[in-house]
C-alpha cells in the first residue's frame, strides 16, 4: 500500500496493513490467549449459527403447526398467565452478569484483588441463577406441559427437539463458564494472579489477562443468548 493511500485511512485502520506486513506478530500487543479466545469464539459462532439455521429450516419445513411461544412459555403469576415472565428475568440476570464481569476485568487490571474477586463471584452467581432458572423452565415444560424432545401436545414435534437441543447446548456453555468463574474467583482471592503462580495443569504463569479472556467468553455466551431469545421466544 503506498504512503498516500495509507495516510488517508482513518486512525487505527492505518496500523492494519503495516501490522500485517510486519514481523513477529500480526496483532500487535495482543496476548496469545486473548487472540486464541477470539478465534475460538468465531468457530463457536459457526456452531450456534448452524444450530439456529437448522432450527429455521426445520421450523419452516414441518407440516404441523408450530406452537405459540407466548402460550407455551407463560408463567402463572398470582393466577394470571404472564407470557415470557420467567424468560425476561433470566435474560435480565444474564445480561447483568455481563456487566459485573466487565467490572471484574477492570478491577483485575487495576490489581484490586478484593473487588475483582467479588465481581467475579457475583458473575458466577448470576450465571448459576440463570442455569437454575433454565432447569426450572425445562422441568416445567417437561413435567407440567408434557413437552418432550420427540413430541409435544401443541403441534410440531420439532419444537421440543430444537428447543431442548439449542437451549441445552447454550446452557452447557453457561455452566462451563460458571465453573471457570468459580475457579477464577478462588484464584483471585488466593492471589495467584499477583504472584504469577503456575497453573496446575498447564504450568504456565497466571496473569490477570486470563480474566479478560474468560470475560470474552462470558460476553459471547450472553450475546448468543440474545439470539436464542429472539428466535425462540419472540418469533
Amino acid at each position: 500500500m503506498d504512503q498516500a493511500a495509507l495516510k488517508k485511512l482513518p486512525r487505527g485502520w492505518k496500523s492494519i496493513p503495516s501490522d500485517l506486513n510486519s514481523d513477529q506478530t500480526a496483532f500487535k500487543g495482543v496476548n496469545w490467549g486473548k487472540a486464541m479466545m477470539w478465534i475460538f469464539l468465531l468457530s463457536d459462532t459457526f456452531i450456534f449459527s448452524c444450530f439456529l439455521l437448522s432450527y429455521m429450516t426445520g421450523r419452516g419445513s414441518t407440516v404441523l403447526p408450530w406452537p405459540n411461544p407466548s402460550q407455551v412459555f407463560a408463567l402463572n403469576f398470582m393466577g394470571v398467565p404472564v407470557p415470557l415472565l420467567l424468560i425476561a428475568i433470566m435474560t435480565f440476570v444474564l445480561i447483568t452478569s455481563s456487566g459485573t464481569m466487565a467490572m471484574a476485568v477492570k478491577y483485575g487490571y487495576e490489581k484490586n484483588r478484593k473487588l475483582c474477586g467479588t465481581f467475579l463471584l457475583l458473575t458466577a452467581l448470576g450465571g448459576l441463577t440463570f442455569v437454575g432458572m433454565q432447569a426450572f423452565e425445562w422441568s416445567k415444560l417437561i413435567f407440567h406441559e408434557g413437552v418432550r424432545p420427540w413430541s409435544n401436545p401443541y403441534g410440531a414435534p420439532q419444537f421440543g427437539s430444537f428447543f431442548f437441543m439449542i437451549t441445552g447446548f447454550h446452557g452447557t456453555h453457561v455452566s462451563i463458564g460458571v465453573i471457570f468463574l468459580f475457579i477464577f474467583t478462588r484464584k483471585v482471592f488466593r492471589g495467584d494472579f499477583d504472584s504469577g503462580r503456575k497453573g496446575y495443569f498447564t504450568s504456565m504463569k497466571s496473569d490477570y489477562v486470563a480474566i479478560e479472556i474468560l470475560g470474552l467468553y462470558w460476553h459471547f455466551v450472553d450475546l448468543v443468548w440474545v439470539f436464542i431469545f429472539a428466535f425462540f421466544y419472540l418469533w
Partner: protein
Amino acid sequence: MSDEFDKKIEAKADTIVDAGSVPSGSAPGIDYVPAHEKPDQELYHSHSWWTTYVFSQDAKYIGIQYAITAIGTGLIGLVLSWMMRLQLAFPGLGILEPSAYYQFITMHGMIMVIYLLTALFLGGFGNLLIPLMCGARDMAFPYLNMVSYWAFLLAVLILLSSFFVPGGPTGAGWTLYPPQAITSGTPGSSAGIVLMLISLCVFVAGFTMGGLNYIITMLQSRARGMTLMRLPLTCWGIFTATVLALLAFPALLVGCIMMTLDNLLGTSFFMPAMISMGEKLSYDGGSPLLFQHLFWFFGHPEVYIIALPAFGIISDLISVHARKNIFGYRMMVWAIVGIGALSFFVWAHHMYVSGMTPWFGYFFATTTLIIAVPTAIKVYNWVLTLWRGNIHLTLPMLFALAFIVTFVNGGLTGIFLGNVTVDVPLSDTYFVVAHFHMVMGIAPILVVFGAIYHWFPLITGRMLHEGIGRIHFWVTFLGSYAIYFPMHYQGFVGVPRRYFEIYDSPYITTSTLHLNVFITIAALIVGAAQLLFLFNLIYSARAGEKAEKNPWKANSLEWLTPEMPPGHGNFGKELPVVYRWAYDFNVPGADKDYIPQTVPPSEVRYAKVEKT
C-alpha cells in the same frame, strides 16, 4: 492497562506512515531487523520419560504421535480397501457379505479422509513444521496441544471400537446420509452409527484445540524479521486449511449432534415420516436434505483442508529440489487464501441429484467453475517454477511431479462433475470414485510420501533408503494409475458406485468384469509397496545412512537449528533472525546456489535477491 495501550497505538499510528523504513536518527544499516517485541516463550520442561515421550508437550513429539496414529489408522483403511477390491474382482468367492461391504466402504472412506489425511497434514506436519518454520520455540499453547493429540487418539479408538459392538460399524457410506443411516436394514444403524458420530464429535473437539494452536503460533509467534510474506508456503497451506477446519467442522458437529439425538432420543430433525417393514415409524416431519447441506458445508471445505497443506508442501518441495524460487509467491499465497474462501460457496455441487431446487445447481456450478481459476494458477506456477530450473530427480521431486500430474488429472474430471448436466448421468458411478481418489486420495498421499522423504532426515537424522524409495515411488505412481484410470471408463459405461457385486448382466459390459480383476491385482501390488515403505521407515530410522545437516540445501528455518534433529526449544539459546524469504535459490551474484533465511544482506552484498 487500556489507557496505556491506547496511547501506544496512537503513537504507533503516527509513526507508521512511512512503514518499512527505519526510525530516523540511527543509521539504518542494511542488516536492520526490528527488536524482539516480547520476552522469550516460557517452555514446559519435562523431567520424566512419561512427560517427554508419552504425555509430551513438545510440538515435534506431538506431531510424530499424530503421524504414527494417523498412519496406523490409515493402514486399517488400506486393508479394508483390499477386502473390497477382492470382493469386487472375485464375487464368486463370497469374501464379503453385502453388509460387510457397506461397513468397510464407510469405514474406509471416513478413515482415509478424516483420520488419516486431515490428522496427518494438520496434526502431523502442522505440529512438526509450523513452530520450526516460523522460528518459534514451540506451539503457543503446548498443554492444549497435548490434549488435542489425546482427544484424537480417543476419537480413533471410539471409531475402531465400533467394529466390536453388536451390529458392527455403520454401513451408511462416509456421507452418513439419513434417513438410511439410522434406519434398520442399514448395517450398524444402532450402535455403530452412534459410535461413529461420537467419534467425529471428539475429533472435532480435539482438532479445535490443535487448530487454535497452529493459527496463533503462526500469527503471533514468528521470529524477528519473519513477516507473513516470508513464510514458506507450507505454513500458508496448513494455516489456511486450519482456518477452514475451524469454520467447517462446526457444521459437521451440529449435524452429528442432531443425528445422534434422532437416533437415541427419537427426535425427527432429519427423519421424515417413514414406513419400515410395514410399520410406520415414530419419526415425522424432519428434513433429510438439511443433513446433506450441513454435511457438505463441512464436506467440501474438508477437501481443501486436505488439499491446501498438500499445495503448500508441494510448492516447497518443488522449489528446493529444482533449486529455483517459487514462481509468483504472492500469487500462490492469494490463491491459497482465495481457494479457501471460495470453498465455502460450492458445497451443493455434491447435491445436484438430491432433489434440491435446480436453481441452486446453476449457482453452485458457477461457483465451482470459478474456484478452478485460482487452482489452475497454482498449477501453472508449479510448472513455471520447474521451467528452466535445476531439477534434481530426488525422491521428493519425483513425488512432487507425480502429484502435479495426478492433481491435474483429478482436476479435469472435476470440471466434468462440476457441471450439472454432465454430473447427473455420472453421479454415483465409478467416474466419481475415480475422480475423488485422484484428486483427494492419491494426489495428497503422493505429497505425504514426498514430504516424508524430504523431512525424514530432520526427524531422525538419517536418510531413507534410496533404492527402496524408488521402487516404492514407481509402483505407487504407476500402480495407482492402473487402479484408477480404468475406473473412469467403468463410470462412463455406467457401473454404479457402492455396489458390493457387479453382476454379469446384459447391462454391464464384459470388459468391466475383466477390468475389476485387473484393478484388484494392481491395488494389491500398490498396497504391498506401502508395506515396503513402512519397512523403509523402520529400517532407515535405525540403520539408515546418517544425514548431513541440511541435506537438501534448503533455506527455511527448520533446517537451520543448531542440532539436527532439533532439540527441546528448537533453536538453542538465541532465536533465529530472518532477513529474506525461503526461496533464494540460484540468486545471480551469490557464491552458493542457496541463501538460507538467516543470512544477513551484508554477507551477500552482490547477490541480486528478490526484495521480500
